């Protein structure tokens, strides 16, 4: 576990795999994966995605949770490109109650800390749909600069919409300690979700379904 101010980064295992089955079909997922097709993700596809990320030498899939242990979502680090010290990074706030909270922002800050202070990256990119103000706000607070607008770039719910481009450079990153202090992060005080029932006993689960 890597401890942050409001959230901790944890290995993507146990309940996270189960939660991901619903997260990968939520709006937040598709907004974080703008280039991909908006199609249903089956259990098999979710499992495959986790396996792919576990084997991925240029990427990582990491869970993040509130201080009370409530899983919030995942951070994805991928396509690390050593020559230009760049990577594609994504924060998925799977539990929608946390959208726009400081916990979500801290997830991003912890990811940036990993990028700049662990991986020694030069630059981190971010994208958002033009109407996604929650995301803009999050990027702005984290110190990203707006670098341009890709006009009518992707098809989204009946229309072509713009994509806003953001970037943050290593010399603009003040360090995790400094930025969290400056931002004065406040916990949202959300109640944790009820614990998931154990799913590891596959046959047992099936019998329950039949009853």
């Amino acid at each position, binding site marked *: 576990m890597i401890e942050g101010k409001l959230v901790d980064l944890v290995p993507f295992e146990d309940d996270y795999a189960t939660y991901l*089955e619903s997260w990968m079909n939520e709006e937040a997922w598709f907004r974080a994966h703008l280039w991909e097709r*908006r199609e*249903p993700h089956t259990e098999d*596809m979710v499992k495959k995605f986790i396996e792919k990320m576990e084997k991925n030498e240029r990427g990582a899939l990491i869970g993040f949770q509130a201080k009370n242990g409530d899983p919030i979502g995942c951070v994805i680090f991928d396509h690390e490109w050593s020559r230009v010290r760049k990577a594609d990074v994504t924060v998925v706030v799977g539990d929608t109650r946390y959208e726009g909270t400081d916990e979500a922002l801290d997830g991003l800050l912890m990811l940036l800390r990993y990028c700049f202070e662990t991986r020694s990256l030069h630059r981190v990119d971010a994208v958002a749909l033009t109407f996604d103000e929650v995301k803009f706000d999050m990027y702005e607070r984290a110190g990203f600069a707006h670098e341009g607008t890709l006009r009518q770039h992707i098809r989204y719910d009946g229309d072509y919409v713009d994509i806003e481009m953001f970037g943050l450079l290593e010399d603009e990153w003040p360090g995790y300690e400094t930025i969290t202090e400056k931002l004065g992060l406040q916990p949202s005080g959300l109640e944790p979700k009820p614990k998931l029932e154990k799913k590891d006993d596959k046959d047992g689960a099936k019998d329950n379904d039949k009853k």
Partner: protein
Amino acid sequence: MLLHGLLVDLVPFTREFHEEKMHTFWNNESRWWATMGDNQPVTRAEIKRMNEERIQGHERGYTGIHFMMRARDGNIIGSAGLNWLDYWNRYGMLGSWIGEPDYWSGGHGTDALLLLAEYAFNWYDLRRLILFTMGPNIRAQRNVERCGFKLEARQRDGGYAGGEWVTSLAYGMLREEWQGRETLVEQFNLRERAEKRYGALD
């Protein structure tokens, strides 16, 4: 959730569908209607093979998108989707299959069709949707016609079903003919019908 309807939701397939429901649906009367007359028995082993082939198909670039149909009472009742998506000519072929006869004629198929058509036009910017059914399937014809599909071709003796030759019907709907899901939900009183069957909507 991807496609949230009134009587049904279109959701990702679960293992239960592939391992249990499919075997039922492929061996009951519903298959005859959905496939233009296929009815030979299918074993679990064959279902398993079909599912493996399906996964491989996706890896090789098969473009179809399929959903599991779940009724508001939580039961898995069938499937629906874009069986074929031709990006270059910008058309999609719809297909749907309610495997539980108890749920026929209750508006579930209509609800699914409206969700699918809206999804196809909104997210993939298609020019046109098409679908096929057979002469004896009067329910399907009524259903798709009132949703705005036009009968474009009748292939005489286009299929062999239940010991006789049947007409194969090709339907199409252009983008400008699509009235939008909301309009048709109103027109068909789908909200009322959903509440009558399943109680108040959330």
